[in-house]
Structure formats: structure tokens, C-alpha cells
């Protein structure tokens, strides 16, 4: 299996273009559900373009870490996205790594983002970084346990293999252990994308902010890169969740019709998942920061039970 250049370019374009749209869709639906008119769904594109044209203000105390962070965040999110099967079962970069590489890349991006928050020595940045690290220390193992549950059923940690195994005879669609793993993964998704029970994505004027606190010092082009990277990460996690638990409609052969159908299924799954996220965000209040580990420990326990129950019966 060699590197398929057109597929690589196509998935890169898909990730770059669809990520802001998904963020915009969630924002718009959330506003509608709260009886507000809300921003248009393509507003995030305008935001990115506007940020790209603005000047940057960089603290004189900032070191090279501050300057390199936006690129690292953006590139890690993008390359993690290239390992996830989105339209076809064959992810363009599946040759380079599977679930472990994906989790590692996202962790690398998060590590640099935390460093970037600490670097200009603003009080908020440090708080945001320490909170992010505290939460990810629990969220990350929960995510790995959930992915491993599916990986054991498929016999491989390669995400393309996992998706392909779903067509095999040993695969049980929506196995009980998958239900547990899905619940764990959904909580992790809320935590990783900074959604409401964990973090409030709508404001950067709150003492309990996590993600926004880290990028408080960023402006202009760098802010655009980080925001875009964050929305790509959200798209990657959501399509991971959609495709490894519900691997329906992925294009099997390389015909335009199959690709179109695959795209249609992907969009449908993402829209459903976005609807679920919006419902959770609207019906729940933000948790107190010290309560968040409680929620994540539930995710961790669900992931553990999912993994254990694959062995125990």
C-alpha cells in the first residue's frame, strides 16, 4: 500500500474546509435552541480570514515556543486527521500509524498549546495550561481505553483495519462493550473539544475558562491557526467517533458514486453527532472545575469496563 497522493490532498482539503463549517453549525444550532438567532454557519470562515489579515501583538517576554506553538497545533491536528478514515475505509496516512499515533499527535499539540499558554507568563495562561493538563491526564487514558476496546474486536490498532474489520464475520455491530466504549468516548469528546459540562467555548471572559485562557495572548495569524487547528481537532475526534463505532456507508471501491455516498454518510453522521453535542450543551450547566474530574473518572471507568468486558465473556 503506497501513499495515495490524490486521496491525501482530498482529505486534507476536506479537513481544512469542513472543520470551520462544523464549528459554525454547532454554534448556530446552539443559538437556535436557546431562542437566539445566532451567527451564520459560515461565520468561522470569516473569522479565520479576518484573523489572518490582522496584525499580531507578541509579548516581548515570549520565547520561540510561543512562536512555534500555533504551527505545531495546526499541523498535529491536521496530520492526526489524515490517519482517520473519513470517506473511504483507507485513511491516506494509515501507513504511518493508527490509534496510538493519533492519540500521540493530539497529545503533542496539547503539550505545545499548554507551553504556549505558559510562555508569555500571563496569569491566565498559566492557569489555563495547568487546568488543561489536569483534565487531559484523565481524559486521555479514557480515550485510549475506549479505542483499544474497538481495536481488540478488530485485532489491530490501525484505524483503517478497524473500520475494515467491521465488514468481517467476527464483528458484532454495537456490541455491549462498544456501547460502554462509545459512552466513554463521547464524554472524552466533550472534554477534549472544550464543550459545556467541562469548559465553556462561548466566552473568554470567565475565571473558569480552560482552552480560551491558554490562547489569551495570541492574536492575528497565530490566533487564526490555533482556532482553525482546534476546529480541525474537533472534526477529527467527531469523525473518529462516528466511523469506528458506526462504520456504515464508507466507500468500498474507488468510484465517484461511492465517494459521493461516503461523503453523504459522513456528513449525516457528523450532523447527528453535532446535534447530540448541542443537546448536551444546552441542557447541562457547566460543572465546577473540581467536579470535572468526577465526570472524567466516569469516562475512565466506562472505558475500563468496556475493555474488561471484552475479555470476560
Amino acid at each position, binding site marked *: 500500500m503506497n501513499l495515495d497522493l490524490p486521496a491525501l490532498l482530498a482529505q486534507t482539503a476536506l479537513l481544512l474546509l469542513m472543520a470551520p463549517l462544523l464549528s459554525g453549525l454547532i454554534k448556530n444550532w446552539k443559538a437556535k435552541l436557546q431562542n437566539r438567532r445566532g451567527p451564520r454557519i459560515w461565520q468561522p470562515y470569516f473569522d479565520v480570514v479576518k484573523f489572518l489579515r490582522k496584525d499580531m501583538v507578541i509579548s516581548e517576554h515570549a520565547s520561540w515556543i510561543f512562536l512555534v506553538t500555533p504551527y505545531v497545533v495546526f499541523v498535529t491536528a491536521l496530520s492526526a486527521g489524515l490517519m482517520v478514515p473519513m470517506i473511504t475505509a483507507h485513511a491516506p496516512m494509515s501507513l504511518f500509524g493508527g490509534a496510538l499515533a493519533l492519540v500521540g499527535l493530539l497529545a503533542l499539540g496539547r503539550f505545545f498549546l499548554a507551553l504556549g499558554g505558559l510562555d508569555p507568563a500571563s496569569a491566565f495562561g498559566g492557569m489555563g495550561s495547568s487546568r488543561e493538563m489536569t483534565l487531559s491526564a484523565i481524559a486521555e487514558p479514557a480515550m485510549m481505553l475506549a479505542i483499544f476496546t474497538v481495536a481488540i474486536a478488530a485485532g489491530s490498532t490501525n484505524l483503517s483495519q478497524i473500520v475494515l474489520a467491521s465488514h468481517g464475520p467476527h464483528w*458484532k455491530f*454495537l*456490541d*455491549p*462493550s462498544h*456501547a*460502554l466504549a462509545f*459512552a466513554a468516548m463521547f464524554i472524552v469528546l466533550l472534554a477534549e473539544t472544550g464543550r459545556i459540562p467541562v469548559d465553556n467555548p462561548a466566552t473568554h471572559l470567565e475565571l473558569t475558562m480552560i482552552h480560551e485562557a491558554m490562547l489569551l495572548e495570541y492574536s492575528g495569524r497565530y490566533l487564526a491557526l490555533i482556532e482553525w487547528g482546534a476546529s480541525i481537532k474537533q472534526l477529527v475526534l467527531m469523525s473518529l467517533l462516528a466511523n469506528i463505532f458506526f462504520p456504515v456507508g464508507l466507500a468500498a471501491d474507488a468510484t465517484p458514486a461511492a465517494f459521493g455516498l461516503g461523503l453523504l454518510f459522513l456528513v449525516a453522521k457528523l450532523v447527528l453527532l453535532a446535534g447530540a453535542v448541542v443537546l448536551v450543551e444546552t441542557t447541562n450547566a457547566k460543572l465546577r472545575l473540581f467536579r470535572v*474530574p*468526577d*465526570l472524567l*473518572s*466516569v469516562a*475512565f*471507568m*466506562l472505558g*475500563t*469496563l468496556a475493555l*474488561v*468486558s471484552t475479555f*470476560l*465473556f
Partner: protein
Amino acid sequence: MNPPTSESAAHLITLLASIMLVLQLLLVVQRMLVANIRVFATQSLLLAAIAAVVGYAYHAPHVYVVAVLTLAGKVIFLPWWLERLVRQIKIEQEIDAFVNVPAAMLICGAQTVLAYIVARPITSLERLGNNTLAVAIALMLIGFFLMINRRKAITQVLALLTMENGVMLAAIALTTYGMPLVVEIGIFFDVVVAVMVLGILVFRIRETFASMDVSKLNELKW
């Protein structure tokens, strides 16, 4: 009874049972009383769905009665009654637990694993659902733990109800497609009456001690 139907039915039952387990774990972390009651109602709805699937797939019409009774009693009537109680005693916020949440989750996880191990020798004989028995035992154990862990009387009532959900699940999905109808109706009305009596008791505790904390009852000793 053709095999594909019963196989997919068994699959569906196991799936619904494991969602019941997820809800039970949510009950351990949730601190709002009304949300707790709604989680319990959802769990009972799944139980009713399992009963309906069993009744349909294995041609056991009397299990439909169980489904309807569960739907009427545990999904509609008891949650309504408990929510009314919560409104009357005007305590809806926090529930103090003896053990903090991460430790409680670890205990519940250990109980679930224990349930799996205990159920394992029996699962080979089981006709329905692969690990439904394990889930049922886990529901009972976690419900028992929930009763010990919570101070407020009303959540102890809820914990009792979830334990009863576990018993019902074991009865419906395990051996005989449910117990004889008379026994089931008996158990059902037993629970309804017990909850109503407990509800009055909770109200009394609240009036006498100005709190729902059952540890206050220790003052009666002196």
C-alpha cells in the same frame, strides 16, 4: 422460532442491558435529585423495552404484561410521585455521599467485574443475551452500594428501585422468560406500595428533623 430473529433479539437485549448499566453508573455521579429520578425513569424504560423484545422474539405473551406494568409504574407513575415529593420537601440540590466520586466509580467498577466473574459459569447455559445476567447482578450490587453511600432518604429509595430493576432484568432475560405472572404482579405492587410508604416516611423524617439526612435518625437512640 427461527435462529436469526432470536440471535438479533439476544443482541438487542444485551445492548439495552449494557445501556442500563451505563445509566446506573451515571446515577452514582449525578447529584441533582430530579436528574437522578429521570435517569431512573430512562433505565426503567429500557427495562420495559427489553421485556417487550423478549415477549416478541420468544413468543411469551405474559412478558408483555411486565413491559406494560413497568412502563406504567416505573417510567410514569413512580418518577412523577418522586418528583412531586422532591417539590414538596423543597430539597433538590446536593446529595452528600460518604465516598467521593472517583473512589465510588472504582468501587462500582470492581463490583461490575465481580458480577461478570460470578455470572460467567452460568452464561454458557443461558439462552438469552450474552452478559445480561452479569449486568443484572451488577445493577443489584451497584444499587446496594448506592443505598449505603447516599445519606438522603430519597436517593436510598431510588437505589432500592434500581436494585429492583436488576432483579426484574435477571428474571425476564435469564431463565424462564419471566416468572409466573402472579409473582411478577405481586413483586410489582409490592414495590409500588413500598415506595409510597417510604415516600411518606421521607416526608415525616423531613418534618421531624428538618433534613433528609438519615444519619440524623441516630439521635433517636438517646
